[in-house]
């Protein structure tokens, strides 16, 4: 399963990630096959590892809700989040309009979004046990997405079409809202988007393994009756953050991979995570209608 995920991310996440990954796999394979090498469980047993705060928050211009997740890192390298309950969480805009988020489930804080607006700057403050964690983020506007469409273009290909402004530096996050897979996002810099995206489209997903009707869906689950994709604007910091995270899918931490590094987020006081403000648009597609 993990491997399947790697493939999915690989195929769409970021070009250079794919690039690195292939090589490390190729190498490992060569070694495994040709030179009697093998793998064995290994206990790193790293000393001095401490638990750190992790804050993940999103505010959009879609006036539904704003949410923040708060958890802690696990020095035992476990797979379940250590959720943080009882924090006080506030978000406000430049004008000073403040939202106080309520803990709706353990570690998950929400409020109705009444302030999200493109072009504004938003601030986050988390207080937990005498410690304060803050962040601020600008919400970049999305370029006009009048032509935004998603098409199934045969050969198991889903393409997204829209007018990409040529003279701006833009970063996008595509998310599969429905169905929602375990890792249902792709980030892309317009540097890697063909100038003809309005007519040629950007291939969100394709591959021989995929059967649109009965097989696997673009982002990890399927089959689906309809496809809802959201397009969000990103700051460069957000884009780099997701790319760095994505590198974890592709790096094996080994000698042929780049030296791994933690993504650079915007939360203060040594906490990990990211507070992101994004403009967002949605597009729906019914495979049967083609």
């Amino acid at each position, binding site marked *: 399963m993990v491997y399947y995920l790697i493939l999915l991310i690989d195929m769409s996440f970021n070009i250079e990630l794919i690039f690195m990954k292939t090589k490390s796999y190729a190498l490992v394979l060569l070694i495994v096959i040709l030179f009697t090498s093998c793998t064995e469980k290994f206990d790193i047993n790293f000393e001095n590892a401490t638990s750190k705060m992790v804050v993940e928050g999103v505010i959009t211009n879609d006036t539904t809700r704003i949410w923040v997740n708060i958890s802690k890192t696990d020095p035992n390298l476990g*797979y379940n989040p250590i959720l943080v309950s009882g924090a006080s969480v506030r978000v406000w805009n430049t004008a000073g309009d403040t939202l106080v988020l309520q803990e709706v489930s353990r570690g998950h804080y929400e409020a109705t979004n009444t302030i999200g607006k493109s072009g504004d700057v938003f601030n986050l403050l988390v207080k937990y046990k005498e410690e304060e964690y803050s962040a601020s983020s600008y919400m970049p506007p999305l370029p006009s997405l009048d032509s935004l469409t998603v098409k199934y273009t045969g050969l198991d290909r889903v393409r997204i079409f829209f007018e990409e402004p040529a003279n701006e530096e833009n970063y996008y996050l595509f998310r599969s809202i429905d169905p929602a897979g375990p890792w249902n996002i792709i980030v892309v810099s317009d540097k890697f988007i063909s100038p003809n995206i309005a007519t040629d489209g950007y291939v969100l997903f394709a591959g021989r393994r995929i059967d649109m009707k009965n097989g696997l869906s673009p982002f990890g689950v399927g089959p689906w009756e309809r496809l809802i994709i959201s397009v969000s604007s990103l700051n460069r910091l957000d884009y780099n953050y997701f790319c760095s995270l994505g590198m974890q899918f592709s790096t094996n931490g080994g000698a042929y991979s780049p030296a791994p590094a933690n993504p650079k987020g915007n939360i203060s006081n040594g906490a990990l995570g990211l507070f992101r403000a994004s403009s967002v648009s949605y597009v729906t597609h019914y495979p049967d209608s083609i």
Partner: protein
Amino acid sequence: MKLIIISFGKPFNISLLHMKSVYVLLFLVSFFIVDCSIAQKRQIYGTITDSQDGSFLMACNIYSLTDSVGVSSNSYGFYSISLHDTNQVIIFSFIGYRNDTVYISLNDKYLLNIELKRQDYRIAGVDIYAEQRGDKQIGKQSLIIEEIKTLPSVLGTSDLVKSLQLLPGVQVVAEGTSNLSIRGGSHDENLILLDEAPIYNPGHVLNLVSVFNTDAIASVDLFKSFFSAQYGGRLSSVINIRMQEGNSKTLNIHGNIGVVSSDLTLSFPIKKNKTTLLLSGRYGYPGNVLNGLVKLNDNPFISIHALSSLPDDNIVWFYDLNIKLSHIVDKNNRIYLSAYQSRDEFELRPLESNSHMEWGNNTITGRWNHIRNSKSFTNHTWYYSKYSYGYNRLYEVNGYEWNSHLQEFSYKYDHDYFYNDKHHLKWGGQIGYRQILPAEITPNSEFSNFSSFRIHEQQTLKGDIYIEDKYRVNNKIELHVGLRYSSQMNIGEDVVYKYDSYLEVIDTLYYKQGEPIKYYWGLEPRLSLKYYVSRRSSFQLAYGRTMQFIHLLSNSSLGLPTDVWLPANYNINPSSANQVSIGYFHNFKKISTDVSVEVYYRSINNIIDFIDNADLFANDQVESQILPGKRKAYGIEFSLHRNVGKLNTNLSYTYARALQKVDGVNNDKWYPAQFDKPHNLSLSLNYKIFKTLTISSIFKLTSGARATVPVSTYVFNGKTFVEYSDRNAYQFPIYHRLDISFLYSSLKNEDRKWKSKWILGVYNVYNRKNIFVIDSWSMNKIYLYGILPYITYRYEF
């Protein structure tokens, strides 16, 4: 935009003049010094060659018993010795050759070409060898090719680079790779010269096999961070590899047949004693072996789990070709033409993420050796070197083809001047042109999301001059003083970005074809002092400064064939290093043992590292991903060489550290380099059990390499991720292994034309599972080689 170019115009004009003056000076110096030479009364000069195949012998000792003075031959076998007395007794000696003693009555200059006869140094050449070692030069290590061939190796492919790894002061990040770290330098800081032409990637099959075919190599010298002013361009070492010359007497054919590669070398005279040709080729077929194994596995009686799910159409092969033509024009002139080509194709398709990589080196070298007079020897070298690499991503949506290359043309002039019995001068220089195309990307299918683009080429000119004097002050003290002036100029056509302190582009400058962009220069003083404590021991002190005008953008510690070379340019400074070392060398005659101790300290400036999670892929503003830093390295190296009767022992131990600091990485704190492995021990033994059977073994023990590892996990967007430690904060467990090999050579070989040898070996005898990589996904360690037996057949006729 225009304004900017004009404002930069002036200094560039000056630097152009500056550059020009370098070339003019280069030639003036050479002629001037020759003309003002004062004729010494008595002299012997000539070249020293091997009697069997006519190849020249470098670093031979020529010693006058009468005058008690000596010199050594230069890299083309030329020597010249100035003498006082009329009746001379002169001894010519060289490792592995019989001494030749010449009695001569001398009144004037005398041309004396000497042919030395080979000798099995393991049996009878002990003393000569030992004497040679007593005279050891600080920082220099030489490999004996025959020794390399008998050492145990991975799958029987004798490997020059792996043999270098046994020497003190030489490190590798991970077992089995060819990227050397010498005295705390990274692997792009080594100048690897094959017949004077630089080789940019010394590895086949992702560096698991070195690109040099030992059967075509005559000699290998490694200069560790201190080298003669004759060499420049890299910070940490010079690995000077010389191809064999063709046999000028008779046809000789030899080769090896091995598990993953085989080779054949032909060497013969085109015109006896005048023109010779060497042809050598090697073909490696690991992919075919693998495909064969997979096919074999289909047999119900053989079932290897690891092979069962693999396809049998993998492409992994390589070849290398060496050609060398040498021609003796007359007694004073020789010309050589050597060419080298290597190629790799790499495609392992078991996973659906298909990719195809290919890379290769090409070099052509032309040389003209000229004996000007009894004291002067000149060598002109022209070379062309190209390293090209490509990557073909065969995945439809993100499919693309990436091609890249680096090529350089250069002319070098070297002058050896044996002024008198005290001074041996050398001077010369080099001019060159280098062009680098970092990336050209084209989509490889109509479904690809990629659009074609090309990252602009970078072009540079180089101009270096040097002069040095080997000055024998008296019988006790020898002084080596040298100075090198090295420079590089970036020229257009180019697009240059200017960045602010946040590495954001604030301006773009356009340069026309040939227009100067940036000029860098530096002075590199080299100094060494040798003090003979006794005839058999010396104390040496060396200081050297080196500069490097080219960087390898390698985001991984081991490097990949597709890593990009980039010159120092408008935004990236050249790097420089200073080193001080002290050494003591002693030869214990009674027990035929050489020991040496060397201590060094180096500081390296302007090394490059990358911002965290750097975006290097096809990035035309790659400078924005680079951070300059510094490194310090220090250590102590012990070595012991003993050659008694049938047993040959080499033991070395090194304690070495390499730490670096890059602002912007690791919270601006010092951190260890990946190859920072403090303790290194290696022992190689070679024992002739019978006349027909020799056993060799290698034992190696080092501290583990450094790595950045996961320290905790956390959840983001519903998925678990890992948090990493500080850069290289984790040290792998100790590395150690033992290899043994047996060489069988039939007694019949002595009488028959077809001579054959069998080599049977085991790599990693006790199956130590040394870590190669830790997979941070599965928390598994991957080890490269378990116990690995092999067999090789070597033939010669």
